[in-house]
């Protein structure tokens, strides 16, 4: 392999892939959500554009692209324009540190499916995904309108609160894996033979609930509760700026699902690694297993949305401060103790 390929083409290719991958996933996810919700509700859902309506999100994107960008004159111009970009940017940037699959061997060259393998990958990813809340707050504030402002305020409280259990449960994984490197965490699960989700079910449950809340998804979709706040923080946005918020939300879901799979369900590892009877499962490459697992959690998002009513603000906060945080603290201490004794 020439140095040109190794040092220029492959990194550029990876960068393009890291931008394209979330986009493709977003398109698939939007389609999946609309079709699955329709299925659950006894409807058809979009099925006209392309095979089974798979091109519907593309058609929607084209429509949004040609729509007028409206900004009311009271809006703060700078923040109003920055916030959709900020939301999208932070979601996409986080994918740099998330592996897209297991390394592929091509002859003597090993192609790694991630841009950066950082020793603190988990920390950076969580940090970057939290930046998106600034976009939400700025957007709600800059609109200078009441419903977006209320949405933004709800968002601040909600995301600040739910960051705590996310951090505490992610730390338990770090304890066990003794690493903050996302790739390393998967490797540790491979060598230890057990996925951390089964080792620490409580961690997984708390992490998942908090992650749903952090992505502003039903039943925790208060910042954009349509029956109350019209559209919440992005009420005043239209056209592509709205599309940015919309796509960033789905990209965030893909990111969170990837994190859940990496932290708790062995990333790209096929299931039942030690069991001979299930050796045939290794036929599928790791990246496919990884995708299947991510899709499962994305499906779970949709399933939850179609099933539950929306929380009210006070019970949402009660849930996190009275249940999830104490639970994750106890869980954290237990894991730390076990880790110390072993």
């Amino acid at each position, binding site marked *: 392999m020439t140095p040109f390929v190794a040092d220029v083409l492959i990194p550029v290719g990876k960068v393009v892939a890291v931008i394209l991958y979330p986009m493709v996933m977003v398109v698939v996810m939007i389609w999946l959500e609309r079709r699955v919700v329709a299925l659950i509700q006894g409807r058809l859902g979009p099925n006209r554009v392309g095979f089974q309506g798979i091109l519907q999100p593309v058609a929607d994107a084209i429509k949004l692209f040609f729509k007028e960008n409206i900004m009311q004159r009271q809006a703060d111009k700078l923040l109003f324009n920055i916030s959709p970009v900020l939301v999208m940017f932070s979601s996409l940037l986080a994918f740099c540190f998330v592996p897209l699959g297991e390394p592929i061997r091509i002859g003597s060259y090993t192609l790694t499916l991630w841009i950066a393998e950082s020793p603190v990958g988990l920390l950076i990813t969580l940090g970057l995904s939290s930046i998106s809340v600034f976009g939400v707050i700025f957007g709600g504030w800059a609109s200078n309108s009441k419903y977006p402002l209320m949405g933004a305020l709800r968002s601040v409280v909600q995301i600040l609160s739910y960051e705590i259990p996310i951090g505490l449960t992610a730390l338990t994984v770090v304890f066990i894996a003794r690493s903050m490197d996302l790739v390393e965490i998967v490797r540790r699960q491979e060598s230890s033979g057990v996925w951390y989700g089964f080792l620490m079910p409580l961690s997984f449950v708390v992490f998942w609930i908090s992650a749903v809340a952090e992505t502003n998804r039903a039943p925790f979709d208060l910042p954009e509760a349509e029956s109350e706040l019209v559209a919440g923080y992005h009420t005043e946005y239209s056209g592509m700026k709205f599309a940015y918020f919309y796509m960033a939300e789905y990209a965030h879901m893909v990111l969170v699902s990837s994190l859940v799979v990496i932290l708790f369900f062995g990333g790209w590892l096929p299931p039942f690694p030690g069991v001979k009877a299930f050796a045939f499962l290794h036929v599928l490459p790791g990246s496919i297993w990884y995708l299947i697992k991510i899709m499962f959690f994305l499906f779970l998002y949709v399933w939850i949305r179609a099933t539950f*009513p*929306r*929380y009210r603000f006070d019970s949402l906060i009660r849930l996190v401060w009275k249940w999830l945080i104490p639970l994750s603290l106890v869980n954290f201490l237990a894991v730390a103790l076990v880790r110390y004794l072993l």
Partner: protein
Amino acid sequence: MPESAADRPELRQAFDALTGRFPDGVLSGGVEKGELSVRVGKDALASVLAFLKDEQGFNAVDDIIVLDNIRASGEGGKRFTVLYQLCRFPDFLRLRLAVDVCETEALDSAVPVYRSADWAEREAFDMFGVRFEGHPGLCRIYMPDEFEGHPLRKDFPLGGRDVASEAPRIYSRESDSLQALERQSPERGIRHSPTDTHPWNSAKGIKEIDLNMGPQHPSTHGVLRLKLAVDNEVVLRVVPVLGYLHRGMEKLWENLTYTQVVPLTDRLDYIAALSNNLGFVLAVETLAGIEVPRRARYIRVVLAELQRLASHLAWLGFMANDIGAMSVLLYSFEAREHVLDLFEEYCGARLTVHGIRIGGVPQDLDGTLVARIRTVLEGIPKHLADIRALLDENRIWKERTVGVGLIGAGDAVEYGLTGPSLRASGVPWDIRKDIPYSSYEEFDFDVPLGRNGDIYDRYIVRLEEIFQSIRIVRQALDGLPEGAISAKVPRVLKVPPGEVFHTIEAPKGVLGFYVKSNGTDKPERVKMKSPSFINLQSLEHMCKGNLFSDVVGILGSLDIVLGEIDK
């Protein structure tokens, strides 16, 4: 006092008590069509109302009706006659007070006595210009504040007038400052940081902000506008603003023949169009003395109860969607769809059905349709079981509904609540049971009651009513008598002079029609007492101190339809 009162001794008793107490105030009295109607002097009105409420137990004002006597000058030559339609329940007794008033005079307000008269008086003021002294905030309710004239007066032109209307300013405080800014620097246009006029900063030291909800809002069930004052998310005040859908139905009706009015009533509560038909038609039949054949009465019961099913199912879906359970909307609409299919098979229409005619019903129920109704009735409990599995014991649903939007039995009566919302507070008042019409006395059904009067109780009561409706329809189909489906009604129906106030139990509450005839084929005056309109009055009472999210849930739980509120 005419002899015909003898069949209702309570009526005579009430009348005697009234004349005994106010020998000068009571001018005349009479019973017509089983209704006691008493004419009192303007000055005695307030004390008569207080007496009737405190000592005679008339606990509700059904409606306040104004008659414009410009054509047939009223008694004493006064321009307006104001009718107070009072009601006593659970032991049913109804009384109509009539007061004559000139254009220049003002009446004493009934609001200090009857809290529920608030909006009815505002409506009377808006439509006729009758003023009420002592009303807490007498202003127009349907027409814009700057509107001139009073549309229901007989001398107001039928086609209306062109009105130069300026869009009301919603954020007065902000728009004032915005305009001030613009005046200062018109060449720059508006450019300021959010801190200048930001809603939360503009009123320094005051945490309260005004929030405008509607008329374009996903959960105001039409074009209702609520002016909210909130402190953070806590609701301090709720002021409903009506009139975005006001079509002047009552004015229209005065200029149409009785048969032409019926299809227009479809457009009132369009979720339960058939109940409106029934309410109006029954009032006209009572007035004209038309005896409806028994088979027609049974078919009406079948249709009305199917309509109640459809209405409650639609309510369930909207309500759940307001609280965020969107799948329930689709599930209950699927069930409703089957009921609407039945209407389609019966009369060709699904939503605005016009399924009842004066004198009877337009179509007979044939064997195949009866069989289809039975199949649909089989299927509905299955749909409901799915929905109940999703909601009944759901933690989030219970957190959102139990103890939210509380209204006690006393307050509920005081605010004039009717229908399922009243029964959810534990008041057993169902017109079908208490003043049976259209053969309801021949059917066996229960009136489900709630205990606490919260959203959850309203949910349970309506669900239970769906099952009771199924029961009634089954009984009516089993006992469907043979015979004609319509009485002989002349092609041009001329109703002898008289007046009647007839109420039915519509899905949303007590639906009343006051019809006054003048011997021609067109009514002199039709006034509709719409349940949604009166029920909405209690919204502020239920919302105060709750969170903003709850306003949406409480509004949903009241089951309002703007077509009926705005008439």
